[in-house]
Structure formats: structure tokens, C-alpha cells
């Protein structure tokens, strides 16, 4: 199934279809109107959060509800959250752990995928079978024994506890293996004739040809790690070690009914990935489209 999806990447998933530039048909005009209405609905929660965050705290909690605060908009809530809160620390924790998770996942999955695709070793079929079968295992099943394991290893409340269990993506090994299968073998055979080692062939021939799939896997893993809640929530308690999603969960109790500040925190937490998405929309959409059906 992954192969069928991968083929799509070359045909330009995110590309716009060449359209005839004549004036829009009636159906398209109606379609655009419907899409606009839906887009407004979809963007509404962002807009309402922004309006709330830009109000003074008293106005945010005042009835009747207003769109424009009588005293005007203010950045007070953002300032308070950035000064008093732990958002910068949590953002850093998320960035650091997600980056390490993504890097380690890429390295170990690509090496294993390459072996499964290219090296004819004894036990290969068995290994492949075990990895594919393990895709089925739902992460929530692991939380109890994993927590106990981390406790025994004395790793609770460390970056290690957050990172280690998240580097396993059997589905991504499968996706990479399928991609490597499609690369013509002749290129590597020529290099082997010249006496290049396996590792050199992998690093200098296979990897450069695999940039699209590597970035797709990286995007998929990074977004997953950045937004993961359940495991980091269990693995960490210490405020200074929380990731952004877990830290946000604690602000409601800390700030109480500070609605403007809650929304300011939520928006600031949402900002990094939204900005990245605005810049790399095409790559991210292609990454999700190529890896999404592989199952997670």
C-alpha cells in the first residue's frame, strides 16, 4: 500500500492542476463561495482565541460578550504569559526532544530499511515480518510497562524518558524499505565493483537519492513528537522538563480563570508549527500524503 502512495509523490501531490484560465464556470464560483464559508468556520477558533487573547483580562471574562473591547486591544496577556510563564522553556524542551527523536528515528530506520531492502542476509524475512506485525501495536498499551521500566532505570523526569520510547516507528522502516526497493540496483552494483563498502554505498549513493522520502518521514515523525501528549505527560512531572503540550495542560490550573492568558498561551504554543507550515506548505503536505497511509 505504501508503494502506491509513494508513487504519488513524484506526480506532485501538492501541485495545482493546470487550469484553463478562462473565466470561472458557475460551478466554480459556487464552489469558491462554499469553500470560503467553510474556511471561515475552520479558522474561527483561531480568530476567537486571538480576540480573547488581545482583550484585557477583565473584558475577556465580561458579559455580554463583545468582539471589540471597550478599552481597546492590548498585548498585556501575551506579555504576562511570556514574562511569568514557562512557555519559552517548554518550547525549547519540545524542540529539543522532537529534533532528537526525529534524528534518531531517521538514522536507525533508514539503516534497517536499507538492510531489509538490499542485503540478502539470513533472517531477513523474519525480521521484516516482525517489524510489519509490530505496526499493529497501539502505543497506549505500552504506557504502563514503559513507565515501570523508566522508573526502574531511574529515567523518569529526564529528557531520556521522553525521547527513548518515541524513536520506534516500525511503519517508517517499512515506508523507507519500500522506497529503497524502487531505486535501481545498477547504481550500487557499479560502486561495489569499484570496491566501495556497504556503508559508503548507502551514504553516498542511496541516501542522496532518498531525500524526498527522508524529509517526508522526518516531517511525519517531528509533528508526531512535537504534539505527543500521553507519553511525555506520564514520563515527566518536573515543570522545567515538560514539553509544550504537557505544560499547557498545567496552565489552566496555574492561571485559574485567566481566559486571555490561556488563549495567549495556546496561540503562542500553536505558532511555531503554523509558521513552519506557512513556509514549507508544499513539503509538509507531500510528506503527510506519502507517509500518512502507512499506518502509525
Amino acid at each position, binding site marked *: *500500500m505504501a508503494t502506491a502512495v509513494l508513487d504519488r509523490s513524484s*506526480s*506532485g501531490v*501538492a501541485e*495545482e*492542476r493546470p487550469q484553463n484560465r478562462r473565466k*470561472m464556470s458557475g460551478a*466554480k464560483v459556487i*464552489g*469558491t463561495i462554499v*469553500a470560503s464559508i*467553510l*474556511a471561515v468556520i*475552520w*479558522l474561527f*477558533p*483561531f480568530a*476567537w*482565541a486571538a480576540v480573547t487573547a488581545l482583550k484585557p483580562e477583565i473584558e475577556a*471574562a465580561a*458579559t455580554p*460578550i463583545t468582539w471589540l473591547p471597550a478599552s481597546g486591544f492590548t498585548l498585556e496577556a501575551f506579555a504576562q504569559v511570556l514574562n511569568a510563564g514557562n512557555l519559552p522553556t517548554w518550547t525549547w524542551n519540545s524542540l529539543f526532544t522532537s529534533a532528537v527523536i526525529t534524528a534518531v528515528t531517521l*538514522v536507525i530506520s533508514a*539503516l*534497517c530499511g536499507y*538492510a531489509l531492502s538490499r542485503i540478502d*542476509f*539470513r533472517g531477513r524475512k523474519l525480521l521484516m515480518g516482525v517489524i510489519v506485525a*509490530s505496526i*499493529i*501495536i*497501539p502505543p*497506549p*498499551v*505500552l*504506557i*504502563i*510497562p*514503559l*513507565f*515501570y*521500566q523508566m522508573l526502574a532505570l531511574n529515567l523518569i523526569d529526564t529528557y531520556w524518558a521522553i525521547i527513548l520510547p518515541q524513536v*520506534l516507528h516500525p511503519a517508517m522502516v517499512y515506508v523507507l524499505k519500500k522506497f529503497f526497493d524502487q531505486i535501481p540496483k545498477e547504481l550500487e552494483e557499479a560502486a561495489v565493483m569499484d570496491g566501495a563498502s556497504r556503508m559508503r554505498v548507502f551514504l553516498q549513493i542511496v541516501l542522496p537519492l532518498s531525500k524526498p522520502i527522508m524529509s517526508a518521514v522526518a516531517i511525519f515523525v517531528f509533528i508526531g513528537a512535537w*504534539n505527543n*501528549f*500521553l507519553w511525555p505527560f506520564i514520563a515527566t512531572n518536573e515543570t522545567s522538563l515538560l514539553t*509544550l503540550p504537557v505544560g*499547557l495542560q498545567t496552565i*489552566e490550573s496555574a492561571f485559574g480563570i485567566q481566559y486571555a492568558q*490561556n*488563549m495567549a498561551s495556546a496561540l503562542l*504554543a500553536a505558532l511555531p*508549527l503554523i509558521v513552519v507550515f*506557512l513556509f514549507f*506548505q508544499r513539503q509538509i*503536505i507531500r510528506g*503527510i*500524503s506519502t507517509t*500518512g*497511509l502507512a499506518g502509525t
Partner: protein
Amino acid sequence: MSSAVIERRKAKTNKNDLHGWAFSAPFIIFFLLFLVWPILYGIYMSFTGQTLTGANNGLVGFANYAEAFGDPDMWRSLGNTVYFTVISTIPLVLIALGLAALVNMGLPAQWLWRFSFFAPFLLASTVVSLFFTWMYNPQLGIINEMLGNVGIAPVPWLNDPAVAMWSIVIATVWWTVGFNFLLYLAAMQNIPQQHYEAASIDGAGGWRQFFSITLPQLGPTTVLIVILQILASLKVFDQIYQITAGGPGGATRSIVQYVFETGFTGYRLGYSAAISFIFFALIMIVSVGQIFLNRKRSA
């Protein structure tokens, strides 16, 4: 075959064995440590009276499983999970299909639609929960305010057991429908243009083309999306825990939340492990059912 050739072949096999396992070794090590071991240890735990406080009254046989099967809270959580899965999967697939078909009409400003419908997927669950908890707020919620403006009585979004799960579904659809939307959009753009051209010549209009070309061509994609969505919905935890904490009165508590609570607030790790394997069995049934269905389709 000369012995030299056999020798060389043997040497090559040995070298391949070495290389193959060496390349796989880093993944295998993590795999054994953080997947195989926890699964095995989890199975063991499910047969013990292990607690979080360290007390362990040793092996208890099937007592945990027997207790779970007689535990009304377990059944209720399982029922809630299946209910959520049914009422979330349907809109998450149909709305995704509708949005993709709409955007695929060749509308202008493609990036705007993709951004609008997909951006929420990039949010952490906690951000989504903060947004919706605020919009559902009984006194200050903007949704009830706007409904009131058009004469609709306020909806008890989170306080009524009959409504709360639907409120979770609405938040979930907003959050994750963009993922299925992208998968559908990619699949639609992969349908050969000639099909449509031929249909146009035959005089088929937009709707006819959608039902006679697009939908049938999307068959395999739809099967995959539905299966993945069912598997994802069965694992629901984050947004429920954050928005309603399983309430009111356990009406939205999911099975993963029950695993979490028996383990970390009830301190009963052994019992909690047993429930998580009952949940695993449910996932297995769906997954194996899917493999079976796929076999039948392709046969």
C-alpha cells in the same frame, strides 16, 4: 560447480549476514528495549498484583482479567470508546471527502483551502482543548452566544452526558479532518485526467463525474482511510481527558483513560496492564479484520 565458487558464495553469505544484522542492529536494539520488552513485561504484569507504590502480591493468575470482565466501569469506558469511534469516523471520512472534492474542483487560491482545513492538524491536543473549552464555556462561550443571536437555546456542551461526547467529536473533527482531507486530495489528483475528459465528451456533468468516476476510483483509498481512522479513534485519550476529564459522570471516559486512571491514580499497575491488553485485543480484531478484508478484495 568448483569448490572455489562455493567458497566464494559462502564467504559472501557470511558477509551479507554480518552486514544485514549490523545495519539493522541499532533499530533492533531500540525495538527490543522499548517495544518487545514492555509488551512482554506488560503481559507479565497483567498477571500480577503489581502496584505503583511498590507492593506486589505476586502472580494472581487470571484474577485481573476476571475482575476486568466484571467491571462495569471497564465496560462503560469500552462502550464510550466504541461509541466515539462510530460517531467520529463517519464525519471524519465524509467531511474529508467533501472538502477534498470541493477543493479539487480547481478552485482558485489552493493554498488558502489547504491551509484552512489542514492547519488545525498541526496543533497539539492541548491547544485544541483550550480553544474548545473556552468556546463551550457555559457563561462566556461564544458558540452559545452566537446560537442565542439566532434564537437557539444555549446547549449544555460539556455538562450534559448526552451532549458531551458530541462536543468532543466536533472538536476532534475540527482538529484532525485535515489529515484525511489531504489523503483524499492526493488520491483525487492521482486519478488520470483522461477519465474525466472522456466523460465530458459523453456529456456527463460534474455530479455524474464525481459519482461515476471519482468515488469508484477512491475505493481503495477510502478503505484505508476508514481503517486508519477507526484505529486512531479507538485510541482516543488526549482531547477527552483535557476537555471533560471523562465526565460528566464518566459519560466520555475512554478505555485509554481508564487504563491511565487505574494505573496512575488508582496505583494498580497489574490491573491496568490487564485492561490495556483487553484494549489491545480490540485493536487486533479490527486490524486482522482489515487484513482479511483486503485479502478478499485483492483475491
